[in-house]
């Protein structure tokens, strides 16, 4: 058993997520009850007013994300939390936040789908929905914590990325991690860096709300600050006004992608274990990464040359990191609690460098270390 020192606190994944959000400066929450995400809402309802923020329970998930985007436009860091069916309802507004470049954090505590599915058994089935759920080409950032500590840390980072790039960030927590309790060392203010959205430094008449200042991320003024401008989900010119001119449409969609893709090198967030001499590399995320780590450790004890890369960012897909792993090992195993979503991305960037095996489970039960170890033994050269 792990020794819990005096300095540690016992937290649930969802609780840690709220703590992280409040530390990151979140002061607005709008949501709708859904298991297994409801704890986030319940704690927010209690804590947010004490922190000087606002909580509101909306009439559905569409309204929740609408209110979150509204609050963010008024200058307040905002978030919502939901699970599968609610996440489906939010898709249109995720697209709006991408297009209008409104920072916000959407937590999706994944449960098994499709539809009402298996309430509320765990799954990792929403990985592709997080990427392509809303219509049209768009960039997205999705983060997947695999421990209670990471729920805290990565929620803070989700806000930071969302503010830095003015984009919605999706936190994909699986039900296991959300409901798990672990002792973690509390973070203090000095341990963390909080980022804020870029604000205009010019007087209102010089303000170009959707121009590219060079970073790809235009400064954002809050409604009521005196910079009167137009926000729309339509394609718009640099002033925010609707346009169908291809010389205005094309630069906008290209900028939306490039503001994130030019920073790929900063978005390679992963932990690696025993990968230096590994013949087989396991690529996993969320709760499956925990089982995979144990399997890899046991495999090493048995003399298998196996390693693990634990992904913390799922989107944009960490092409550089994965390509390196594929070059350095003979085989790759991607265990996932879905029919094969990240494994497809791994295969896409593989280009015949090595064998890619999968281990999929979609029945609401966990992938165990034994199952992963068995598979590793099967495929070990």
């Amino acid at each position, binding site marked *: 058993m792990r020794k819990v020192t005096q300095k540690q606190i016992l937290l649930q994944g969802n609780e840690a997520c709220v703590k992280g959000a409040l530390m990151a400066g979140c*002061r*607005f929450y*709008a949501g709708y009850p859904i298991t297994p995400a409801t704890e986030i809402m319940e704690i927010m309802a*209690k804590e947010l*007013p*004490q922190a000087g923020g*606002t909580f*509101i329970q*909306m*009439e*559905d998930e*569409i*309204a*929740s*994300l*609408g*209110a*979150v*985007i*509204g*609050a*963010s*436009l*008024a*200058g*307040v860091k*905002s978030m919502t939390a939901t699970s599968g069916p609610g996440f489906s309802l939010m898709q*249109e*507004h995720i697209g*709006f936040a991408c297009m209008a470049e409104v920072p916000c954090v959407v937590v999706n505590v994944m449960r098994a789908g499709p539809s009402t599915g298996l309430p509320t058994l765990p799954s990792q089935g929403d990985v592709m929905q997080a990427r392509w759920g809303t219509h049209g080409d768009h960039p997205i950032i999705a983060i997947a914590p695999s421990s209670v500590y990471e729920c805290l840390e990565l929620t803070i980072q989700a806000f930071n990325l969302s503010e830095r790039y003015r984009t919605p960030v999706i936190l994909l927590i699986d039900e296991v991690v959300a409901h798990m309790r672990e002792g973690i060392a509390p973070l203090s203010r000095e341990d963390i860096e909080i980022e804020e959205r870029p604000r205009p430094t010019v007087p209102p008449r010089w303000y170009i709300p959707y121009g590219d200042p060079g970073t790809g991320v235009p400064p954002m003024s*809050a*409604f*009521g*600050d*005196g910079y*009167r*401008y*137009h*926000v*729309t*989900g*339509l394609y718009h010119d640099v*002033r925010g*006004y*609707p346009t169908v001119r291809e010389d205005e449409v094309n630069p906008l969609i290209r900028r939306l992608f490039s503001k994130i893709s030019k920073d790929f090198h900063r978005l390679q967030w992963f932990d690696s274990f025993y990968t230096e001499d590994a013949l087989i590399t396991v690529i996993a995320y969320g709760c499956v990464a925990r089982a995979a780590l144990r399997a890899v450790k046991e495999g090493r004890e048995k003399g298998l040359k196996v390693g693990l890369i634990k992904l913390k960012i799922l989107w944009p897909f960490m092409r550089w990191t994965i390509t390196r792993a594929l070059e350095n090992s003979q085989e790759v195993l991607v265990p996932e609690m879905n029919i094969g979503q990240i494994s497809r991305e791994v295969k896409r960037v593989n280009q015949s460098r090595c064998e890619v095996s999968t281990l999929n489970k979609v029945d609401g039960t966990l992938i165990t270390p034994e199952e992963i170890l068995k598979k590793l033994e099967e495929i070990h050269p």
Partner: protein
Amino acid sequence: MKETVHLVHKYLRSSKKFPHIWCAGCGIGIFMQALIRVIDRMGYSKDDIVLISGIGCSGRLPVYVDFSTLHTTHGRALTFATGIKLANPRLKVITIMGDGDAVAIGGNHLIHAARRNIEIVSLIINNQVYAMTGGQCSPTTPYGQQTTSSPYGNLEPDFDICRLVEAAGAAFVARATVYHTRLLDQLLGKALKKKGFAMVEVFSQCVTYAGRYLGLDSPVEMMKWLRDSSIPVAKARELSEAELKGKIVTGILVDREKPTYHELCKKAFKQKPKI
């Protein structure tokens, strides 16, 4: 004329490439003019006003005026407005929606914003048709009316928006038409001043679609139709349901004092949570 020129220069966005997208003879421009006139008369700072719209012909209104403006998704203007108002209660938050926008796809949000009595001015332009998509029937299209999506006649009864919003709990409910511009100015002024959820339904003419279906071929004929089918609320109270069929009852229908959502929040959050 001098006043109009002054308002044009003060409130219309000079950087926006006019002309606007509305058809010749559309009623939305009359409504926009009334809104600008009233806001100017009441002396609000342009920085304090946020104008939010949904999708449709009415959804294009905010882009032309020099406030903080937000063109949202179909039916959801009130949800964005709720977030903005709660995040910065100092702002005067106004939503503009069409009939399909407000009571079909956005009906749920309308009910709940009214129920919360959140301080938002909700202005619904009712032209009884989905105009931007080519004249399909909406929840306010009269029963039996033929449209592009009801070729055998509309089989659904039409919605009384004011009654819906009243029942949901709004503090202020009123109705006007774009023909009755003085009344419209007066009602918009009252709605802007109201503490709580204030809704004004504005009957407007869509010459391109609704007019064609009604057999009214010109804006003038449609304005005459608005004039002749309207009846002031005091007079309407003396008439029976049957006599009021097809009539547009105009004036203030509800004006009541209720604590706003924001006031209740301020009071509640001073205390310790109960559980």
